[in-house]
């Protein structure tokens, strides 16, 4: 049996920018190996609770073409149909995006948003979403008073800084997927942030942490690059779909 080929993907996240011009942010990830992928599937399913069940049921409907057509025909199920197309693309082994930007990338982003909306819509009042398990918990950083340069601002009030007290499953998912930023603009950045002659930057720190073993370093580096919670949610949905993506 030969070595498995790595399964990589590129995504462009379109976020609102200045003057109605969208901001294009490029990301890269790699499907984790099977042992990690199956473990993450189970942990995500447990953390999502009923919403995870709904998402899995959505995926299972792909096995029944009749049910799939019925689902798409439903006028009120447009969001679900969009999410279903994302699952179908994943199961067909197609990239979530085509990696070239433009309208297809925009659609890919919308598909991922649809998956998020679908999952969120199934987290009802009685849902058992483990939010802390998913996104982690933060706490105020302990700042020692009286230290040299020691965190006390004007008037002796300590600067409020926070750190992750507990990392979330989404951090683990993105770390295991080696998710890293590929820059802003019309195209992904050429060359690796991790090259030795690259100066220190948030992108470089994230690229190095993505290849490293320290989840804490990765989560901190990710915080230095992300520009909105929505971007994190889209990345997490993208990485989660890759856990189920067959090739």
């Amino acid at each position, binding site marked *: *049996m*030969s070595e498995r080929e790595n399964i990589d993907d590129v995504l462009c996240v379109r976020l609102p920018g200045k003057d109605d011009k969208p901001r294009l942010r490029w990301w890269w990830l790699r499907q984790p190996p*099977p*042992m990690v992928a*199956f*473990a993450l599937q189970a942990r995500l399913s447990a953390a999502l609770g009923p919403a995870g069940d709904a998402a899995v049921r959505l995926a299972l409907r792909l096995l029944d073409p009749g049910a799939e057509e019925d689902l798409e025909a439903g006028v009120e199920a447009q969001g679900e149909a969009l999410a279903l197309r994302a699952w179908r693309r994943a199961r067909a082994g197609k990239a979530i995006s085509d990696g070239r930007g433009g309208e297809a990338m925009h659609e890919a982003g919308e598909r991922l948003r649809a998956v998020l909306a679908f999952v969120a819509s199934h987290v009802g009042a009685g849902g058992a979403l483990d939010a802390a398990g998913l996104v982690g918990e933060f706490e105020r950083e302990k700042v020692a008073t009286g230290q040299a340069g020691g965190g006390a601002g004007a008037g002796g009030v300590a600067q409020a800084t926070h750190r992750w007290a507990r990392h979330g499953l989404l951090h683990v998912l993105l770390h295991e997927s080696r998710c890293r930023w590929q820059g802003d603009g019309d195209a992904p950045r050429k060359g690796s942030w991790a090259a030795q002659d690259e100066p220190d930057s948030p992108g470089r720190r994230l690229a190095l942490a993505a290849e490293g073993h320290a989840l804490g370093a990765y989560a901190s580096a990710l915080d230095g690059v992300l520009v909105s919670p929505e971007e994190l949610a889209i990345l997490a949905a993208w990485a989660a779909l890759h856990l189920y993506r*067959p*090739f």
Partner: protein
Amino acid sequence: MPASPPSLPGFAELPALARVCQRLDLSPADLDRRMSVDEVLDELDMQHYLHDCDNEPQAAPRPPPAR
């Protein structure tokens, strides 16, 4: 405490992976290095099929007779 083997999370969440390794005579590390998620899913399907061949699924119980 030493770090747990990288394969442990997969076995803990999906014990059937151990049978995949056993049937294919692969170590967990070999499975990660050589097989994709899809190939593992195919192998799990094969195991279910072989199990059904060896243990014919029971027919559904008959409904009680109408009174």
